[in-house]
């Protein structure tokens, strides 16, 4: 893999081709917040909190640093006003769901977000997909996944599998950033979070 040079927040960074902007930044000790990212799991790119501003030539745009490949000559800003605006709004949107989640409260404090202007059902799930990816990629059990689309999208346990495996596993609990999983399921009684519950709610 060849070496490449790019600039992050004014610092010249040398790294290998093939790494993402997030990895390059972390290597260099530059902090970019994340929520749906985990080193041990596939990249998901859903929370967009890791958004950064990149410039090449005259063109500037916003990309998710967890997915964007580091390129030679790229100029990256991790904390421009445009990026900060995005992060603040994303935090505000997610706070409507999980107002008590420590990870969101920490982010809110870091970015000066005082509360949220939005109303939503505080169901605690920010749909980061960490539980789903862990179960599919590490445990290879596929006991939990996404169902629905758009604003009805949610995580759901597949009863046929979950009833057999979850009670003795519960390894996804520690990954859940808002502690929804440990709080709302004991792994044995999958209250309200199965595919059947979803269907009962959404089919006429």
């Amino acid at each position: 893999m060849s070496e490449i040079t790019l600039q992050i927040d004014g610092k010249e960074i040398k790294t290998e081709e093939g790494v993402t902007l997030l990895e390059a930044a972390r290597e260099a000790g530059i902090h970019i917040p994340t929520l749906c990212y985990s080193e041990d799991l596939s990249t998901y790119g859903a929370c967009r909190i890791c958004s950064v501003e990149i410039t090449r030539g005259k063109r500037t745009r916003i990309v998710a640093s967890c997915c964007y490949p580091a390129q030679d000559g790229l100029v990256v800003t991790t904390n421009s006003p445009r990026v900060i605006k995005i992060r603040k709004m994303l935090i505000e949107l997610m706070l409507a769901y999980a107002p008590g989640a420590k990870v969101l409260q920490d982010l809110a404090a870091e970015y000066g977000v005082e509360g949220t202007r939005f109303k939503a059902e505080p169901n605690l799930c920010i749909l980061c997909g960490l539980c789903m990816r862990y179960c599919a990629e590490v445990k290879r059990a596929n006991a939990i996944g996404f169902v629905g689309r758009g604003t009805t999208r949610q995580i759901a346990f597949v009863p046929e599998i979950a009833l057999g495996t979850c009670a003795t596993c519960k390894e996804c609990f520690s990954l859940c950033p808002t502690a929804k999983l440990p709080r709302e399921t004991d792994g044995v009684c999958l209250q309200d979070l199965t595919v059947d519950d979803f269907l009962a709610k959404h089919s006429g």
Partner: protein
Amino acid sequence: MGITLASPDDLAQFRQEILNERDPDMPIVTVCCGTGCQAYGSAKVTQAFIDEIEKQGLSAKVKTKSTGCHGFCERGVVVIILPDEICYLRVKPEDVPEIVTKTLVDKEIVERLTFEDTEAGQHVAQESEIPFYKHQSRLVFGNNRFIDPKSIEDYVARGGYGALAKALTQMKPEQVLDEVKKADVRGRGGGGFPAGIKWETTRNAPAGQKYVIVNCDEGDPGAFMDRSLMEGNPHCVLEGLIIGGYAIGATEGFVYVRQEYPLALDNILYAIEQAENHGLLGETILGSGFNFTVKVHRGAGAFVSGESSALMSAIEGRVGEPRPKYIRTAVSGIWGRPSNLNNVETWANIPLVIEKGAEWYRSIGTEGSKGTKIFSLVGKVNNTGLVEVPMGATIRQIIFDIGGGIPNGKKFKAVQTGGPSGGCIPEKFLDTQIDFDELDKLGSMMGSGGLIVMDEDTCMVDVAKYFISFLTEESCGKCVPCREGLRQMLKILERITQGEGQDGDIELLEELSEVIVDASLCALGSTAPNPVLSTIKYFREEYEAHIKEKRCPAKVCKALTSYYIDPEKCTACRLCFKNCPTGAVKGDKGIVHWIAQEECTKCGVCFEVCPARFSAVVRLSGEPVPPTPEEPIKVVRKKVKA
């Protein structure tokens, strides 16, 4: 069964044989069998012709043919009698005997079935003279009316597959690609990206299996160009695809068709089978050594799956969600292999480019947008249908010259272009030339070609709400800015249309829009705020009326509109009373009717059924509803001018 065409000479001979069997002077009755006309009963019309022609002993002298969509969907069933091109509109089975007798036998025109040009005060029988068709340039779409989509012979007779023969046997792949690049064909699906450059990227990607894909997921509501092309002339799309495969070095193709288009699906499957039977698909096509196969993949009802990376995921059997496009699908697409995706209309342009050359193609259109574009002209417009014009035609020409303007004497208000990713263009820009870049400058975009015309009775805030509602339902829901941002935008728009708008709502919509545009994972999200932003830009006063005055200027928003019967105009004809679903309309014979506001659900039926000559039911917004009369009022029958 078919004859394997093993060389361009075989194809030429096949064509000649077909032409030899056909008498160019023989009358042919062509009946449009697109989905629209089928809904009007075109199958029965076709059968009526077959039956009547036989009954009158004319079967040896007149042919009847079901063809692809003619485009004049407002006036279906469309029938055109060739070779004289006599066009009859709104044809019903009961009209057929008269047409056969008068036109086919007596060579006379059945005037009542022809187009009536009310301005010029005359009937127009010649298809090419009808204003709707006269101002069009049907280079791509025009063949529809001569072709039975289930007949490869019809396609070949019109010169079909000639471009493929030329490409495969007279040109090298790089030459084909160069020609497409030179012609500057820009994608017709929405992005407007130069097809030649995408082809080149795919071609230059690392060697190995590559794919070419037809995107027939046409999800923009109000757009049906692709449906009509795929239904009416599937071979032309197929020919373009095979040429593309050759130029790019892709030996496999996919056609992704949305499942809401069952006829298009049927017709492309049939066309593929026919092409295979004739050796136009498969191994060493026309003896060229180039192999190409194609598979059809059905969609399952999701707008977002029309996004190219999502479509490719669906082809892989995974859920059709977009992927972050930091690595182009032209380089890493289906199963990580180079995949070139283009829209149906883009592919349909290719045979023309190869047959007539890039120079010819470039002579049509504007500096930045070459060729023609097919638009679906729908909404509040007289001549609803599919329209093909050269790039550079103005919006006014399309809506008024071709479209016949706004029905019922109403005033034009805006035209929405680009579907849910586009914006609304107000009257002052009617003379804008249709061109990718010109539309971008106005805060809209070309999109796939939907042109939704709106009049003074359309509420622009309601339109914005409609699009955001559509997008919240269609969003895949994966990323926060799109899913949550649109959800909150919808709530704000709902509040505004329900009379609960607050100061600061417009600014909050703009703030959310900025983040959604910047941070969304895919183009559905990043273009979603466009309809809202463009309506705020050009119709801000409507938003302000809803918020500050709790008034809907167009009188559409139910919560802000009341229905009221004007006692001076009501003649107690009782139509509103009979049709009211809740019994909110009160009154009796000879007594002026009134509406009990607390029982009224604002369904609007009374307004619709009240005869125009009375127009007693009015809609009020932003003003108090006059109180119910204390005593019943007797109707005074005045002489009403017709």
